[in-house]
């Protein structure tokens, strides 16, 4: 049980997907203008990552031992289509949840963080439970990064940013500064 918890914390803070591995940068830059949307994007991320982890575990256990060369393509195809199916189900069963997740669900299915998650999970040989906690941790980490970025951007909205840095340039610089700050966690938990 302890190990599962450490996997979650490690994926969330220490090896944060966005600020340490620089994966999933497009939603990080694109949908971080408002805290509310950032939170929703994070929720959708946690959901898709859990699904992806489940799919990857299934493929790794039952199918890929027979055809290892299909790994990359099968991950992409299976995860994307599975999330699409789940999306249709949600649309039918709970339109409210569907509206809240909105466009983000299909958007992040093809995100590099999702494929990265599946590949990390495979390389590290995680089982089902470990994989799921890894996925939830990674999703929470993405949410954390998104919310931090969004609250900083909201604060800076009225500030007197020089014209060369307006817009995406400032976002990139904030992202770099955040990543510098997250370097402090390097090596954390590695001793235990």
């Amino acid at each position: 049980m302890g190990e599962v918890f450490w996997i979650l914390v490690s994926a969330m803070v220490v090896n944060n997907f966005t600020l340490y591995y620089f994966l999933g940068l497009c939603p990080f830059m694109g949908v971080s203008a408002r805290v509310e949307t950032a939170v929703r994007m994070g929720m959708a991320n946690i959901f898709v990552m859990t699904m992806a982890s489940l799919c990857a575990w299934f493929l790794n256990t039952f199918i890929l031992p027979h055809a290892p060369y299909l790994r990359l393509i099968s991950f992409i195809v299976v995860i994307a289509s599975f999330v699409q199916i789940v999306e249709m189900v949600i649309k039918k069963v709970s339109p409210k949840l569907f509206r809240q997740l909105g466009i983000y669900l299909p958007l992040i299915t093809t995100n590099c963080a999702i494929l990265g998650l599946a590949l990390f999970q495979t390389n590290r040989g995680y089982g089902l439970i470990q994989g799921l906690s890894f996925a939830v941790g990674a999703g929470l980490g993405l949410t954390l990064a998104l919310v931090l970025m969004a609250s900083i951007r909201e604060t800076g909205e009225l500030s007197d940013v020089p014209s060369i840095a307006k817009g995406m340039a400032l976002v990139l610089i904030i992202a770099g500064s955040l990543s510098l700050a997250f370097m402090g966690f390097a090596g954390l938990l590695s001793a235990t």
Partner: protein
Amino acid sequence: MTAPRLLITASPHLSEPDSTPKIMWHVVLSLLPVVGASIYFFGPSAVLVITAATAGALVTEWIFGTRGSLLDGSAMITGILLGLVLPAGIPLWMAFVGGVFGIGFGKLIFGGLGQNIFNPALLGRAFLQAAFPVAMTTWPVIRENWWQLRGDNLALPLMSPKEVDVLTEATPLGLMKFEQTGTDLWRLTLGATGGSLGETAGVLILLCGGYLAIRNYLNWRIPASIFLTVAVFSVLLHLIDAARYPDALFMLFSGGLMLGAVYMATDMVTSPVTNLGCWVFGFGIGFLVVVIRLWGGLAEGVMYAILLMNALVPFINRATQPRAFGAEQPKAKQTT
């Protein structure tokens, strides 16, 4: 005698003797004893490094800042503070680059004074730490010959530094972490240990900070809650396993905790607005410091702890926003 000038403004008509430049220059003044201590311990190297870092900050502010912003003293503070958190043996051009980065990317790019998210001096140091990890973790000893440089300070930019015959020693925190040996408490409080230029003289920093706190130029709640959190956590951990975790006084007086808590965390721009927020902010810093020091891969975590909590400040401000007088509790949150 000239006629009294009419001042036509909206209320409130309160005047306040404190202005931003006045507060900033007071902070600069209060830093002078700390600078003096660093010169006493590290000799001419301290003068050179602090001057280079300050020059980097001032030049950048002068070129890219708004008109007159050089005179408000904030760039001066950033430069001196950055110099104080660098090791004595660092090549001067690195200190200069740190000052340029701190002011340029830590402050001016956000729109100048009052609008930055991260503490500029700490951002400059974090950048240097990431870019030149070896130079940033070589700690020269306090040596007999005061006049001698403590390392290859005069190295040319982008050249590998000469192999100078310099004696180095680990910082107290490094000793604790990697060799499990403690340091004498008297040496810690008075500052005769290895470390960054200005972080060693703990008692002196407390005195200077006390002066600023009395004049209300820094919010005492931030350092108080940082010290309290670190002390409580380290007392508890020390009770659990005294061999593995150091005692509270060691944790308080080692490394950059004093300088960070008194001068860096209390930066008016990058700390929370409300008093409650300040307590939360200080608690977060103290907690992260303990976590990074005791379980992290690095020996010292004050800089990263403050930067991480800086990033959380907009969030803290949002959460601790006081209710307007007479207003009702907000009902369901409006969704956009």
